[in-house]
């Protein structure tokens, strides 16, 4: 895979964050899945959202994607209020998730064209060629998405996620089902994309090595709350853990104990 072309400048100068989440909450009956969560993602920044299963990460991402209404709180994408201007906010957003594969009965190119049109991408044919090349999908352009391997399918999801040059990219475990070599390529490609533009990325993963390698900042989430926040390289030391992996395990165990007490 080739990193995208363009000036390698981190655009952290932009004042409006790519994503701003304020006092976000979501309840399902008695269950408080997300509980008063606030954070932001700056342009040119990759923020890791990590935590044990059931922590509320995917619920948070679903709310940012506009497919789940918050019980309370506010979400802004580049200063555009998602609730008030859903379509305008989502036009600047895109996502890739292991649980949302693209329709298997369309070819790679057809999928990119359909979603490119939904995002009203200008010069779409040109843009399709670019992402096909960036994600090494040129030879699969006429292949149905349903017969791609896991790695190829992930690359297609990422190509779709990049088609509109999003200002906010949401990646929910994008490398979960692929081999280490492909995962490394994908990480390099996304980092390259962030470096080249003004895109902010919110990245969930259970792979702490990946988070440490890619993310500028990490948010530890558990039981619907953000418990810790900081630089993934220094955060473990600040909390007496040898590595991010150990810190994750410690946070997850605390969450489990709290669950048992509850």
């Amino acid at each position: 895979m080739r990193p995208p072309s363009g000036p390698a400048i981190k655009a952290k100068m932009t004042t409006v964050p790519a994503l701003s989440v304020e006092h976000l909450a979501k309840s399902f009956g008695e269950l408080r899945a997300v509980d008063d969560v606030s954070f932001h993602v700056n342009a040119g920044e990759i923020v890791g959202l990590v935590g044990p299963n059931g922590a509320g990460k995917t619920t948070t991402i679903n709310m940012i994607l506009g497919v789940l209404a918050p019980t309370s709180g506010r979400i802004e994408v580049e200063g555009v209020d998602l609730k008030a201007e859903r379509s305008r906010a989502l036009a600047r957003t895109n996502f890739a998730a292991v649980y949302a594969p693209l329709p298997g009965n369309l070819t790679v190119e057809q999928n990119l064209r359909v979603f490119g049109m939904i995002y009203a991408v200008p010069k779409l044919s040109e843009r399709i060629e670019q992402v096909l090349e960036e994600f090494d999908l040129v030879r699969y352009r006429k292949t149905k998405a349903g017969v791609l391997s896991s790695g190829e399918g992930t690359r297609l999801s990422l190509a779709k996620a990049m088609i509109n040059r999003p200002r906010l990219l949401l990646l929910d475990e994008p490398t979960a089902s692929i081999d280490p070599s492909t995962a490394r390529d994908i990480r390099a490609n996304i980092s390259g994309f962030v470096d080249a533009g003004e895109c902010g990325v919110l990245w969930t993963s259970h792979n702490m090595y990946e988070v440490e390698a890619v993310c500028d900042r990490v948010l530890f989430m558990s039981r619907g709350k953000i418990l810790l926040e900081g630089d993934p390289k220094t955060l473990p030391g600040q909390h007496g853990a040898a590595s991010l992996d150990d810190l994750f395990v410690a946070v997850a165990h605390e969450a489990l104990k709290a669950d048992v007490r509850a």
Partner: protein
Amino acid sequence: MNPSRVFAVVLRQFYLYRSSPQRILPIFLFVAIDILLWGFLTRYLNGLSHVNYFVPALLGAVLLWDFLTRAMQGITTAFFEDVWSRNFLNVFATPIRTSEYLSGLVIIGVINTVISLVVMFVMAWALFGLSFLAYGWALGPFLAVLFLTGVALGILGTAMVLRLGPASEWLVWPIPTLLLPFAGAYYPISSLPGWMQAVSKALPPSYVFEGMRAVVAGRPAPWGELAIATGLACVYLLAACLVFAATYRFAIRTGLIARYSAETVS
């Protein structure tokens, strides 16, 4: 409304049709089977009677009902494609508006019905001498009322599946058949019991079939009744759109779209 997004919904369906004969065939097949089945039956009935009534009345009614069914199924099938390919999250996490999505589905419905209408016209005329032009100027309102009703039923069906989950698809397919006894397609509404007649009055197609029989019998088209039918069909179409919008809001509030295949809400 962004035309690019509307066209994207249509284009996706075009891609599927282009590469899949099993999707194209039903557009023609069921219409052709109905024409053959009912065409020979009406020809036989014409032979038993001294009036040459059955082809324009009975075969015409069958084909007009097929027209309504195609309009509905054009929309529901396009929606089911997103259900079958578990594509809801990908589609609804984009800037597309429900009005744009529905407009795309309706355009697919229009294309479907136009194709099947042409097949109907040609086959019915070539094989059984039925010319829809025999209905005169009333044909326009007949088709308009049936199309609007079919679209309304299609949108209502999609709302039902969105609300109740993928398995509720089987509830949608028989909707036209459930309405058929009340629509008076094959018999005058006056032959129904009182309570069924009351239901018929609320169904726009029943006015179409009464009008069709009047025209075939040589009476003038009931323009006033057809105006009522058009009004009713428009009201139902608006109501169906509102129901879909409310169902969509419910799905967003409850997280149904994000975990649609789990059918958690139903």
